[in-house]
């Protein structure tokens, strides 16, 4: 291994400090609302900081490095176009996300029960949890593979007489950290620890980026990117097989919009904020802040491309999907000095803890609140409810470890993550229509959600049976995009054609009242 004692000391120090914060925050946890949505007392800067921490997962670090290595900075233009759409929509107007906060719901399915029906809540809960958990299964193992390559860990180690793969040992350590931090205090702990971990993460990736550019040289860094990838390294619409393309952009933008109303971890974050305006403000600043973070992390992959070139070094016999994932940690492992390596390891450990914990808490909450408790006639006490969430967290971690044992990379990480998110996005159509259109009804919502379950899963099953020699008529992005479009049309048509009980209520009015109340209390605070 190429990790010195000082590096382990740095990792140990930051871990102990974070654990102390977690233990203290746990002592302040009073009930379910504290554990699941931080008592709805998260203000803007804390929300941005904790959100940024939660969005830089170890798996997303690995995925962004891979994208930087494969496609350079061609994502930039997509990012700019996406910001041009998303920031006005959500940041200025708070489209939908402020209304969701005004509902006072903790999750999407809870809103679906209030607006449509309890049965649809359970169906949405089961579907979203299924896709969310499947998506999460690769988080620990992909992160562990990245770390194992970074520290040049041996392939096998002997533990208590057993000969085991090192990546499984690292996976187990990461999962134990996840359980520890999620168990302690839930959302209030994660909000505060994610914020402090974000400071370490941003510090480490900024330092690493400056170091790499200084090592490679800015001219070689950029010149090699131009030489190796050409236009495809900067412009996403070249039409090459390796470029992103317009369909990808249309699909990812539409999905990005719908996920704001359907993706459990996002909604749990919105639910924890102190008022609706905080949701849109923190969204706006978070998106702009997140854009620079993307450049920093993708830059590691670009530096790897400049230093190693697009091919594997001689002596490596990895599959292409594996090499593109491992190229960046392989390069970094041979070029980082002590201390920086320690900070990077602490950064990666925290990146894993922040995002995996946020997602674990969100999906565990949803499994308990949306899939189990609505089916029980008897109310449970807050202690039992929190205990059920904690046991679900442990069960999910056991599942992730089982997946890690059999995991083999077959496609780029981002594609896998997006494929799962595609299924979840369908419920966003029902939520959005429910908040803005008073004619939307339960059969229409069923239709939209059904379309977005059947089409993406059917696409995947069909792909499995089509021989590799035959070109499949649709790309996954095309299937994703058209699933959403058909889902929207289905909701409108079915809602118009079927008479059903309508439980629409004026969220706009409630939102205005909440914002006025918070303005009054803020001016009261100033007067005091």
């Amino acid at each position: 291994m190429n990790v010195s004692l000082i590096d382990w000391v740095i990792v140990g120090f930051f871990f102990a400090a974070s654990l102390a914060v977690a233990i203290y925050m746990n002592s302040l946890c009073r009930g379910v609302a504290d554990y699941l949505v931080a008592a709805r007392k998260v203000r803007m800067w804390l929300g941005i900081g904790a959100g940024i921490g939660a969005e830089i997962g170890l798996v997303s670090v690995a995925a962004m490095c891979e994208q930087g290595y494969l496609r350079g900075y061609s994502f930039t233009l997509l990012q700019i176009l996406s910001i041009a759409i998303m920031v006005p929509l959500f940041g200025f107007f708070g489209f939908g996300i402020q209304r969701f906060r005004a509902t006072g719901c903790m999750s999407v399915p809870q809103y679906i029960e209030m607006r449509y029906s309890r049965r649809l809540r359970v169906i949405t809960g089961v579907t979203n949890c299924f896709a969310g958990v499947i998506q999460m299964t690769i988080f620990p193992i992909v992160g562990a593979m990245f770390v194992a390559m970074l520290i040049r860990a041996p392939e096998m180690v002997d533990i208590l007489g057993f000969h085991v793969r090192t990546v499984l040992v690292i996976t187990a350590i990461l999962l134990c950290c996840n359980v520890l931090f999620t168990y302690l205090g839930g959302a209030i702990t994660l909000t505060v620890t994610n914020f402090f971990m974000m400071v370490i993460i941003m510090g480490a990736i900024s330092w690493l980026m400056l170091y790499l550019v200084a090592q490679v040289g800015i001219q070689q860094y950029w010149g090699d990117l131009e030489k190796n990838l050409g236009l495809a390294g900067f412009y996403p619409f070249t039409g090459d097989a390796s470029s992103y393309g317009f369909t990808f952009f249309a699909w990812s933008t539409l999905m990005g919009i719908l996920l704001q109303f359907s993706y459990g971890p996002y909604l749990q974050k919105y639910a924890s904020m102190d008022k609706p305006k905080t949701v849109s403000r923190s969204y706006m600043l978070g998106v702009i802040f997140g854009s620079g973070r993307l450049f920093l992390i993708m830059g590691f992959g670009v530096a790897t491309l400049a230093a190693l070139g697009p091919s594997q070094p001689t002596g490596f016999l990895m599959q292409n999907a594996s090499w593109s994932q491992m190229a960046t940690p392989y390069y970094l492992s041979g070029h980082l000095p002590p201390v920086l390596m320690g900070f990077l390891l602490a950064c990666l450990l925290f990146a894993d803890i922040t995002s995996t914990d946020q997602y674990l808490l969100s999906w565990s909450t949803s499994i308990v609140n949306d899939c189990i408790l609505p089916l029980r006639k008897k109310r449970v006490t807050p202690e039992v409810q929190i205990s059920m969430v904690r046991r679900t967290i442990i069960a999910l971690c056991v599942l992730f470890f089982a997946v890690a044992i059999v995991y083999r990379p077959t496609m780029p990480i981002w594609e896998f993550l997006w494929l799962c998110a595609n299924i979840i996005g369908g419920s966003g159509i029902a939520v959005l229509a429910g908040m803005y259109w008073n004619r939307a009804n339960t059969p229409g919502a069923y239709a939209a959600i059904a379309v977005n379950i059947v089409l993406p899963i059917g696409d995947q099953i069909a792909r499995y049976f089509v021989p590799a020699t035959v070109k499949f008529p649709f790309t996954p992005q095309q299937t994703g995009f058209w699933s959403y479009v058909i889902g929207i049309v289905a909701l409108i048509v079915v809602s118009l054609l079927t008479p059903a009980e309508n439980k629409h209520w004026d969220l706009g009015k409630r939102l205005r009242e909440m914002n006025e109340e918070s303005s009054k209390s803020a001016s009261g605070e100033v007067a005091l």
Partner: protein
Amino acid sequence: MIEFTTDPSVRFWSQFVFYFAVVNTVATMLFTVVVVIGGIFDVRFLIRALKTESLDQDDNGQVRENRPEDRP
């Protein structure tokens, strides 16, 4: 700052992406400092609120007809 490629099909986008990335990255590093300072005050607010304000024990993610907030 650096010499860009002479290939006209790549040069414009290469320059554009380079300057955008540099400005964005530096802005992000500076903005981190602002977030950290603001966030510390918000952590203090959160801890004070957890210690002093009461908690609605019925706010548990379940919909019940007798709660006015859950009634459309």
